[in-house]
C-alpha cells in the first residue's frame, strides 16, 4: 500500500510544555491507523498536528515535517485552510453548528468549496448522510436544528459534514468516547464502511476499539511513540515491555 502521510520528527508544544516528542510514523493509504495510550500521552495533540489545527490554539507550536502525498503541509507555501480541506477531522465531543439546521451543517463545508448549485449541494448532503448511516433517521427533518438530534446522531452528522467535502484523510479524535455502546458500535461499523475511500487516523483510549477497527496501531506514552506496528502484532506480540503493560491493563 502507498504511504498517504509520512510524519518525520514531529514535535509540538503548548507554550513551554512539550506535548509530543520526535514522532516519526507512516500512515498507509486507505487504512485505519489507531493511536492509543493513557490520558495526557499526546495522542490527541498528535492528530491535531496532522491537519494543522493544533496551531489554532494560543501559544501552540510545531516543528518537524508532515508529508501529505510527498508535500510538507508545514512548508512556508502551504496554506492551512487548503490542508484542512484535504484532511478532515471529527472531534471527541459532537460539535454540529448549533445555529444551523441538519442540512446546513452538512452543506457548510460544501459551500466553502465554491459549490453554488442547489441541486448539487442537496445531492452531496444526501450522499454524505447516507455514507454516515444517518439519512434514514433525518431525511424527514433536514431543516430542524442539528441540536435536536441525540449525541450519537450528532456525531454521525459530524462525520457526514466531514466527508461531504471529500477529504482524502479523516482524523477522528476519540469519536465514540462521549457515546453510549450502541452508538459506539454504529460509529465503528461506519469506519469499516468508509475506510475504502478514506485514510483514517483514529485516536482512542479504548483498546478493544483499536483492535476491532484498525489495521495499524501506534502506542503513545508521555509524548513519545513507543511502538508502531500492525494492530494484530501490537496486541498479540508487542515488542516493548511498556506496550505490553498497557494493553494487558497493568497501568494507564
Amino acid at each position: 500500500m502507498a504511504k498517504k502521510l509520512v510524519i518525520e520528527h514531529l514535535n509540538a508544544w503548548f507554550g513551554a510544555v512539550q506535548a509530543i516528542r520526535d514522532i516519526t510514523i507512516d500512515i498507509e493509504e486507505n487504512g485505519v491507523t489507531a493511536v492509543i495510550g493513557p490520558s495526557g500521552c499526546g495522542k490527541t495533540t498528535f492528530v491535531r498536528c496532522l491537519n494543522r489545527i493544533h496551531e489554532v490554539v494560543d501559544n501552540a507550536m510545531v516543528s518537524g515535517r508532515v508529508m501529505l502525498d510527498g508535500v510538507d503541509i508545514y512548508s512556508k507555501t502551504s496554506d492551512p485552510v487548503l490542508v484542512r480541506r484535504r484532511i478532515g477531522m471529527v472531534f471527541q465531543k459532537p460539535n454540529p453548528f448549533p445555529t444551523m439546521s441538519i442540512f446546513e451543517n452538512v452543506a457548510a463545508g460544501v459551500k466553502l468549496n465554491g459549490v453554488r448549485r442547489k441541486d448539487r449541494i442537496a445531492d452531496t448532503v444526501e450522499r454524505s448522510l447516507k455514507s454516515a448511516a444517518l439519512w434514514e433517521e433525518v431525511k424527514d427533518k433536514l431543516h430542524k436544528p442539528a441540536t435536536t438530534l441525540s449525541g450519537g446522531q450528532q456525531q454521525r452528522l459530524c462525520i457526514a459534514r466531514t466527508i461531504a467535502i471529500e477529504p482524502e484523510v479523516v482524523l477522528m479524535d476519540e469519536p465514540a468516547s462521549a457515546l453510549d455502546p450502541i452508538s459506539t458500535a454504529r460509529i465503528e461499523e461506519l469506519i469499516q464502511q468508509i475506510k475504502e475511500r478514506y485514510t483514517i487516523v483514529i485516536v482512542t483510549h479504548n483498546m478493544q476499539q483499536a483492535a476491532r477497527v484498525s489495521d495499524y496501531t501506534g502506542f503513545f506514552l508521555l509524548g513519545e511513540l513507543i511502538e508502531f506496528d500492525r494492530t494484530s502484532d501490537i496486541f498479540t506480540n508487542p515488542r516493548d515491555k511498556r506496550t505490553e503493560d498497557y494493553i494487558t491493563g497493568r497501568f494507564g
Partner: protein
Amino acid sequence: MKLVTGDRAIRFIATIFASVILALIVLIVYELLKGSVPSIHKFGLKFLVTSTWDPVSEHFGALPFVFGTIVSSVIALVIALPVSIGIAVFLSELAPRPVRPAVSLMVELLAAIPSIIYGLWGLFVMVPFLQMYVEPALGRYFGFLPLFSGAPIGVGMLAGGIILSIMIIPTIAAVSRDIFNTVPMLYKEAGFALGMTRWEVIEKIVFPHARSGLIGAVMLGFGRALGETMAVTMVIGNAPTIAASLFAPSYTIASVLANEFTEATTKLYLSSLIELALILFVISMLFNAVARLLVIRERTAK
C-alpha cells in the same frame, strides 16, 4: 439551622441597602409624575405630538425633543455599531494575545473620559472640521438627498450623532467582545477543520452564535446615547426643530433639561420640562428592559 448574630446582621444591612435601590426608583417615578401633573393636565396627549416650544406664550410640545433624542441616538448607533463590532472581533479573535489587555484597557478608558471633555473636543475640533470639510463634501456629492441638504454650519444633528457614537463605542465594543468570547472553541475548531478561513469562522460561526447577545449590546449602547447630555448639548445646535437634513440643528430631551431648568420661571414651564424628563425616563427604561430581556434569553438558550 440558626443563623449566628453576624450573619443575621449582615443580612439585615444588605437587605436595607438593596431596598433603597427599589425605593429610589419608585420615588423618582413618583416625583416625575407629580411634577408633570400641571403639564399633563393642560396639554394631555397632545404634548407628545406638538412641535411648538414657546416659553413666552406657554405653548409646549415634546415632539422636536423626542425626535432629536431618538434620531441622534440612531445616527450614533449606525456609526458606532460597525466600528464596535470591528473592535470586538479584533480583541476576541484576531489580536495577538499579549496585545489584547492593552487595547481592551484603552477601549475602556474611552468610557472613563468625562463627557464635558468630549463636548469641548467636539465643539472646538470636530465641529469646525465638519463645517469646513465633511459637510461641504457631503453636500456636493449627496446634496440631492434631503439628508444632506442645507448650509454646512457644523453644529447640528450630524455633529451630535457623531459625538454620541464615540461615546457609546466603548460600551458596545466591550459587551460584544465578552459575547464573542463566550462562543465555544469547540465550534470554531469545527469550522477550521472544515477548511474555513479565519473570516469564515467569524462570519458563519461566531456571528450567528452571538446574534441575540449582540442585540443586547446594541440596546445598552443605545440606552446610553439616549440619556447622554453634556457633549450633545455642546454640539447639536439646541434648536427645537424637526428637519430632514442632518446638517440642521436639533435638540435632545437631556439637552433641553440641562439648558432650560434654570430659566423655567413659571409652574407650567417647569412642569413641561419635568414631563419631558418622564418621557426620557420611559424611553430609556423601555430600551433597557428589551436589552436585558434579550441578554437573558441568550443566556438561558445555552
